[in-house]
């Protein structure tokens, strides 16, 4: 008799119908979200004739990588027909240093703000936090002036500076919140043991930080790689990052629209962030939920 009193929907037919409905709903939403990706990927492997023939959702007749090839090294961006390659290199040489520098600085400031509660530490932290909420558009004008004065306007180095400065608020926030959960006693013990500010940082704080470093790197890389506004505002021509070049590539039309090249170019632009997520994604969640340090 007791068996009858189970939760509703956990026995008999009702159970299977319930499960079926749940999975059906999930499948519909999955397809809904994946469809655009599918269209982009499949279109990038089609040739123009096939695209013109309609059938947006059909698979490519033959696997054709020429659009990828063109997007990478031949497509015209404005008047230069160099493909995305030089801009891809621009983006790499902008993102990698910007991510590393902002992450490193964030961890140092986070460490100083949590473990060396100097006078005004809270005010400084509040101001940095405030920096996270300043919209991009607000800083464009003063930043352009600053870059001009420093003589690094329209260069990749200029963009690195912009992203480091703008990212510092976020990276500091991440590291501060992580370091708060590391017991102060560790720093006290190391101080008595004779280690100074930087030795404690290198020997104790940094070895405990990998989870939050991964989180910060993913966050910063995604932000910086995908940034369009700063790239479009502070650079022209050869110094532009990939996102701006992609936009220009798609807007540069000479007669026919090469959808396959556009799609391949979009995928090339998205590939590095996808790559970072796939490699480090599982540490991302782990890092976000990592609590206090045991021991």
């Amino acid at each position, binding site marked *: 008799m007791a068996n009858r009193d189970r939760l509703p929907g956990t026995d008999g037919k009702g159970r299977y119908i319930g499960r079926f409905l749940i999975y059906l709903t999930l499948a519909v939403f999955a397809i809904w979200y994946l469809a655009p990706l599918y269209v982009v990927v499949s279109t990038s492997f089609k040739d123009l004739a096939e695209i013109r023939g309609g059938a947006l959702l059909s698979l490519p007749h033959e696997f054709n990588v020429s659009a990828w090839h063109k997007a990478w090294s031949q497509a015209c961006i404005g008047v230069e027909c160099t493909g995305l390659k030089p801009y891809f290199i621009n983006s790499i040489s902008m993102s990698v240093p910007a991510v590393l520098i902002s992450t490193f600085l964030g961890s140092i400031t986070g460490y100083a703000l949590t473990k060396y509660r100097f006078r005004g530490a809270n005010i400084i932290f509040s101001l940095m936090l405030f920096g996270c909420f300043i919209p991009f558009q607000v800083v464009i004008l003063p930043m352009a002036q600053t870059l001009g004065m420093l003589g690094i306007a329209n260069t990749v180095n200029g963009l690195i500076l912009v992203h480091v400065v703008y990212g510092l608020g976020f990276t500091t926030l991440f590291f501060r919140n992580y370091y708060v959960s590391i*017991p102060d*006693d*560790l720093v*006290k*013990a*190391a*101080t*008595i*043991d*004779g*280690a100074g500010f930087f*030795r404690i940082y290198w*020997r*104790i704080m940094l*070895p*405990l930080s990998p989870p939050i470093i991964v989180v910060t790197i993913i966050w910063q890389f995604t932000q910086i790689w995908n940034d369009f506004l700063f790239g479009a505002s502070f650079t022209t021509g050869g110094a532009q990052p990939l996102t701006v070049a992609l936009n220009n590539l798609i807007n540069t039309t000479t007669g026919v629209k090469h959808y396959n090249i556009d799609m391949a170019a979009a995928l090339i632009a998205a590939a590095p962030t996808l790559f970072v997520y796939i490699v480090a994604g599982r540490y991302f969640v782990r890092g976000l939920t990592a609590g206090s*340090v*045991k*021991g």
Partner: protein
Amino acid sequence: MATLTINNAGKKYGSVEVLNDISMELNDGELVVLLGSSGCGKSTLLNMIAGLESISSGDIRIDGEIVNDIHPKNRDIAMVFQSYALYPNMTVAKNISFGLEMRGVEKEKRDELVNSVAKMLQIDHLLNRKPAQLSGGQRQRVAMGRALVRRPKIFLFDEPLSNLDAKLRVEMRHEIKKLHTSLKATMVYVTHDQIEAMTLADRIAILKGGVVQQFATPAEIYSRPANMFVAGFVGSPSMNFLPVTVAQQGNEIGVHLAVQYQGKSENQFVPMRNNDKLSQLLGREVILGIRPEMITQLENAEKDLATLHCDVEVVEPTGADTLCIIKLAGKDSIARVSPIHACAPGESMGFALDISRACLFDPVTEELIS
């Protein structure tokens, strides 16, 4: 090997005064326990000695030298934290040798020192483990090892045993005592556990609200507590405080004590010796502080003790002794009797009062009178 002197040291956080005018002097090789309830400023004082907190007023001297502005690493002290504060990313061996490394001791010498300390603490088989792979007691030993390996002038302990279970705590207490006897090092030990304080200390400093209430040997603190706070804090079960009036009967001076006997309240006169001081208090209300073990069964008691009969309300056997709760001067008081003589609750029995060891306190200032 060092002396530690604290002169009128104070600590303020903004306008909040956490420590006020602390003075004490530690002889070479002495173990002093800072005892007090949570939040009274024990850790703050210890951190000030270590140099982790600044000193707002007064000074602290090690071997006579003022250390107020000396960096912790140059004070030649070691500290064991309540949380142990082991470096989670380092092995036990690295944890112990970190301080040596920071001081530029060579690798071979370090290994040698680490090994000898590990042997002494019986953790030599754990040297390659990380702290997370250790039990609480083992972590505690590693934390001790980290302090011991440098052979500092002064050891500071901040409630090092409070995270251990009761049995382990007693064991480690013995080991710390042995260690202190063999090292003969100057130690400051913080705890809120009065038994730990009584068993370990050469002298105890009792803190309350950032003020030292008494700084004396355990025996003196127990038998001559400076005030009612100290008297109530030390000893378990704690001292009975009975409001009484000093009176004269014949040519004897003593106190009147109301007792509950066979359902009725009776006033009983208890004579006290060392009458000189008492005669000045005649007619005044005082607080009589009497420890449970000073109220025992009448049987086998010494003849010259005061006696009284009263009803026993509650009986609590603790094993070695049985605690009887009786009404004295209108207060629930605890008497400690031997189990074979204890009566059943609700019955009455005779007690012997060792009043000569009792203390008298001023009811207003709560200070010891005699």
